[in-house]
């Protein structure tokens, strides 16, 4: 791709390239410390050391990994699990009755006070797939992937507001400032892509998640590991396009000039940082085509576009699902999609669990099912972990503010929720954990968000207690001081 004449001696050029190979997003400004830096990078853990000082060079995990990459689909706002996956016939039976005082004692809710009324699901449920997974009619396309997913119905968290809950889920801590899950994964494993970021984030439905950019931030670990936000519309990566009026040919010429002048500087001052910069500009040039290329879904066959419900040139969750597949195919380590609009309080028709939920799922369950099928067909599902879920659950009772309205909705509920994973070393067609008959508590095999994180890291080949980073005198890890691997869901 890059055939311009090099002003450097060929041998030197080769050495330079080797030393900066895969420096997608950099090296520190100091210089490559080779194996020493890498050893340090992984805090003396058992990670394999690559021969390069590039922080994004692909690295071996601590032990054999089932999953090489992750696609995390986050439904920002918390999907109503009781109307999707966690079928509670007793709740339906007692629907409309006041909540028993025993279940409300000691609990506070975001928008509900007093004694709310139990609300059974208005959806119809049936069992799907060989594993007999319960699912509602709200997500017909999920029925078709019932044999591929591992449904956890005993998720729980400690946070009942969106922002802290999302921060806890993605950074292991309910306040801002810690590195995110994708950053930890890239920090541990590097990136397999030469021309693409290791950790890509895409947002649909117009609003960023409540937890903000911290959900894909790198906290105190180097910013090279933070998620790069890509857009399916406009500049796919911020400032990647040449300014108006600058042709690609002229950009090449300016970079050639820059290359020459910087090489002169390098030979005069001998700073490795200059060599890195030269390489980074070349990489930037390559990215100018590689990123728009991978982000251009119009290259996909019509059949695939239809499967996903993706429309070239648009911006949608469906497009993002298809892009997620294209990105992991190119070696991106961690792809995280955020979709806004899952806060089903019932305060407006769009946030009701009847028609509102039907509409939201119709726009989202098809591309998700298509993604699973597509990955499977390409042989990628075995080592790609797909996660679908929200930041907490929703109450088994009707949200207090809307008791007089036509629209049915549920309040935030941290104690129980459902989430599923697929591929990447988890059992397929498998359901794990349970809630009690009214859905107020976990009755079997609880999994909290730190357990989920520990399990994801385990699938990526890491002991969550050993993937650590030292900052301001303390060792930090994704799971803070908690977390245990849920071995029961692993193959």
């Amino acid at each position, binding site marked *: 791709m890059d055939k311009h004449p090099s002003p450097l001696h060929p041998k030197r050029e080769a050495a330079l390239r080797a030393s900066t190979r895969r420096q997608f*997003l950099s090296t520190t*400004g100091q210089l490559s410390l080779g194996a020493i830096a890498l050893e340090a990078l992984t805090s003396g853990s058992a990670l394999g050391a690559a021969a390069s000082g590039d922080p994004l060079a692909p690295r071996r995990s601590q032990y054999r990994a089932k999953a090489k990459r992750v696609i995390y689909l986050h439904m920002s706002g918390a999907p109503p699990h009781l109307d999707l996956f966690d079928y509670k016939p007793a709740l339906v039976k007692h629907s409309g009755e006041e909540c028993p005082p025993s279940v409300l004692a000691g609990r506070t809710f975001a928008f509900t006070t007093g004694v709310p009324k139990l609300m059974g699901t208005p959806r119809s449920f049936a069992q799907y797939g060989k594993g007999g997974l319960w699912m509602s009619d709200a997500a017909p396309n999920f029925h078709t992937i019932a044999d591929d997913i591992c449904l956890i119905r005993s998720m729980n968290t400690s946070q009942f507001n969106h922002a802290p809950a999302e921060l806890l889920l993605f950074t292991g801590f309910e306040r801002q400032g810690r590195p995110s899950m994708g950053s930890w994964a890239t920090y541990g494993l590097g990136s397999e892509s030469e021309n693409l970021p290791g950790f890509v984030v895409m947002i649909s439905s117009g609003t960023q998640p409540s937890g903000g950019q911290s959900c894909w931030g790198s906290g105190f*670990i180097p910013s090279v590991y933070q998620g790069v936000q890509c857009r399916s519309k406009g500049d796919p990566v911020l400032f990647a396009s040449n300014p108006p009026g600058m042709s690609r040919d002229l*950009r090449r010429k*300016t970079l050639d000039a*820059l290359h020459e*002048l910087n090489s002169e500087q390098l030979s005069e001052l001998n*700073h490795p940082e200059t060599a890195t910069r030269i390489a980074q500009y070349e990489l930037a040039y390559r990215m100018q085509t590689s990123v728009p290329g991978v982000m251009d879904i119009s290259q996909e066959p019509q059949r695939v576009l239809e499967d996903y419900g993706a429309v070239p040139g648009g911006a949608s969750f469906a497009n993002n699902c298809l892009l997620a597949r294209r990105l992991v195919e190119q070696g991106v380590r961690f792809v995280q999609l955020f979709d806004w609009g899952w806060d089903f309080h019932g305060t407006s028709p769009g946030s009701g669990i009847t028609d509102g939920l039907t509409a939201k799922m119709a726009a989202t369950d098809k591309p998700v099912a298509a993604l699973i099928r597509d990955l499977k067909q390409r042989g990628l599902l075995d080592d790609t972990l797909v996660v679908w879920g929200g930041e907490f659950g929703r109450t088994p009772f009707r949200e207090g503010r809307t008791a007089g309205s036509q629209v049915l909705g549920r309040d935030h509920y941290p104690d129980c929720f459902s989430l599923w994973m697929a591929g990447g070393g988890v059992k397929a067609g498998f359901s794990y954990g349970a809630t009690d008959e009214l859905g107020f508590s976990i009755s079997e095999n609880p999994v909290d968000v730190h357990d989920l994180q520990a399990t994801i890291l385990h699938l990526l080949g890491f002991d969550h207690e050993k993937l650590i980073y030292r900052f301001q005198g303390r060792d930090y890890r994704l799971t803070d001081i908690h977390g245990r691997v849920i071995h029961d869901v692993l193959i």
Partner: protein
Amino acid sequence: MKISSIGFSLLLLASESVISSKGTAADHIDYNRQIRPLISNRCLACHGPDEGERKAGLRLDTFEGATKDLEGTHAIVPGKSDQSEILTRLLSQDPEERMPPPKKGKPLEPEQIELIRRWIDQGGKFDRHWSYIAPVKAPVPSVKDGKWPINEIDSFLLSRIEKEDLHPSPEADRRTLARRLSLDLTGLPPSWEAVLAFEKDTRPDAYERYVAQLLAQPAFGEYWGQAWLDLARYADSSGYPSDQPREIWGYRDWVISALNHNLPFDQFTIDQIAGDLIPNPSQDQVIATAFHRNTMTQNEGGTSDEEFRIAAVIDRVNTSMSVWMGTTMSCAQCHTHKSDPLTQIEYFSLFDIFNQSADADRKDETPVLSFYTTEQKKERDLLSREISEIEKRLSDPNPAWKDGAHAWAERMSKAPSWQSPAPDRIDTKFEPGKAVPDGDGFFRIDKSVQFATYTVELPLPSGPISGLRVETRPVEGFGNFVLSSIQAEILPPSGKADAKPQSVSFVSAKADYEQAGFPADSLLKSGKEKTGWAVAGATDRPHELILALKGSPSATEGSRLRVVLEQKSTYANHLIGSFRLSVSTSRDLSDWIALPPSISTILKKPSDKRSTDEQHLIVDYYVRHIAPETRPDRQLLAAKTAAHDAIRPSSVPVMKELPAAERRETRVQIRGNWQNLGDVAHAGTPAAFPPLPKGSHPDRLGFARWLVSRENPLTARVTVNRFWESLFGVGIVSTSEEFGSQGEPPFHPELLDWLAVDFMEHGWDVKRLLTQLVSTRAYRQVSRVSPELMERDPENRLLARGPRFRPQGELLRDQALDVAGILSLKMGGPSVRPMAPNLGLSTAFGRSNDWVVSPGEDRHRRSVYTEVRRNSPYPSFTTFDAPNREVCTIRRNRTNTPLQAFVTLNDPVFVESSQALSRRIVAKADAPNPETKIRFIYHTALSRDPDKKELDTLIRLHAEALSEFRRDAAAAESMATNPLGPADKGADLADLAAWTAVANVVMNLDEFLMRR
């Protein structure tokens, strides 16, 4: 990664150079340098200060603990390694016996165990951790090359360089130094004129003069303020998901001003931590306390204010201890520190000090301080002086001005006359035909009318109409009403079809009675202020409302006045039950309406019954409001008063101590859970440090004085180290955020202590310290490095060459704007919004992340004035490792990524700068050809001349670009003008575009981004 890698690079140096561990048995083992890190990292998690985690009752961080008799064995027997259990355990091959246990970590290296053995044999002495011992000035070392050192710092550095058998590098040339100093001290490049002047300055103190001149520039405070704002976690938004706007820029301006005025660092500290508690604090000292109001505020529905108030207090404790003492407190928040002697109860004693302020995670950020800026104060003072001069003229008027007073008073003593013609139409809208005559020209509204707007048409007398009156009578079934608006227009006589209705506006309004909050004159206003006129409290009486018409419009025979009385209410029958409309032709009606009650009462008296005082009052009123002679003064007064009142104060959240009666009780939060409380903690400082200074109380003021007391072993060290890091790239302690046992020991311990003591001895004088640092021979060296030296000292800890590293993204933007000639030098005030990409996303439950670019010069202000939004930080700064200011950041990473290349190549902010620089050079008459233009770019951007090769490369690029743009006029126009804006008429757009491409290359040179 830097944090860890620095640790390793030190090990690299350590193992290959003088601080070798492979010494002979006779070498003295330094506990702090050689033993403590081993024990701290490998043993203390289980054998440290934390009793909760301690295994086998053994404590290895104190002499007493390590030598304690534990069932007959002793971990350490001083002087007798063969009897020390620790060695048996370290060397054991039995996994049950071996320490650290296989699950906890790898065995120690044989050399490390050997070190411990020798240390025990030498007596096994425990020193306190180096940073807890107060610094003392060691003698300045002697060096072989006595001519090299310029000051003491150089002697310390050179002695180490000489020990390493290395040589320092030669001094850089004046041009390089001019640029290095200017960027390092002001964050802006020098002008070419300044470079040449410095180069030609042959005076012996030329260097010192140049430095002093830079330190005196206002840009100094802006640049160093930016760095301090990272520590202060300054932002213009409150954080958390809703990320509300926060007005706190007064604090940012205080920081810049304090640095420019060289406020001593100890006072700088006290003002920020406890300015409000200083006796009789100045306004500035109170504003300074906003340092700790930069904590985040949680406004999301359903969250607990107390939980987030506590989070803010925790942040204040952690930030204070990090910024001033390089001490990590967050461990002790949940449990007693595992490696440093800080207990959990001590943590909450510090917490108690900060737990007594009045703020409480409120959405309105109270308590806040309202203040006027210096400019505002000046302007208000000037206006006040002008106002009082006019007042003086009016209160001691020229006798001629009083001439008309008598005649005017006569006219005013009579009430205006009114005519009440019978309406020829009354329409109550929605309910037609429900108004019936009620006698005296009044009309009564039927009770069945519940909601209505009345439209009335009155025949008018011919001549100027000056007023409209609405009279009401109480009617059974109706109570209060709100006359929400009244509109009128003059309808031409019905025969004249072509004449248009003439709308009428009102200039003043007066009623006999008004309900609080519903005054008559609100009918003259708009928006929220237009409450309408209502009469609750006196609904059982008749009322009248008088309105003066603007300009007394003329009516002709047969014209009518259409009046629309709007009465908006959610309540039924909230209507005027009975009313009469009248018009007036009286000339002085508006004067009459405007009369205050005090004057109209006097005027009602016959003139001979008025006292002398009353007569004076009338004349005074006449002069001030009516006399034509005073009109210019009156207008001026009104304008000046309006201008004076229009100067609104700004506000800044501040610290305020709760009154003693409302003091909060602090309890230990078990495992850091704010709802799981343990023992009461009383305000105090950790026992590992010296006590509070004599006479200080355990409150914020006492704490602040404790931080900057001469006895405090850390503050001065931490502070000089941070300044060192800013100038030399890496601190003497590379972990500038951590001076505890988990941090790196100082690379030049004696130098660090010498600097710390010297700093305190010279009154914590920051500019003096900076002068000392940049005056060193070390700082002046060329930054060129040989491959051998690079390998030997990759991070330039020895300083055998000049420092060279990438500055922050904010500086890169400022530099680009400055070189382009478009940087605004305006200082202070509300934060501004430079060009930023529109990303089409919103913050959850909040505003759009995108913003409207500030107008005029505000889009080109220095980066320190760019609005900081925690949830959507300015994208290009983030790409260059700027933190989002959620929490205090002591040290930024310094990455080098292709995304950064995208910023400086393609971000419209940088493209605009290239375009502006292109216009500068194309317009330059004294640079007529490409070569001279390129020279100009190099002078401006890099402070040097280009060499032949550089000239050739860029001349060729210009020619190639020019030929491309000659072929494509549309591309040329975009490249030359988007986003800077249209070029002068007749400008050669292709040439401008080609030079833009060239400027873009220069502004992406490694040398431009890194400095030499």
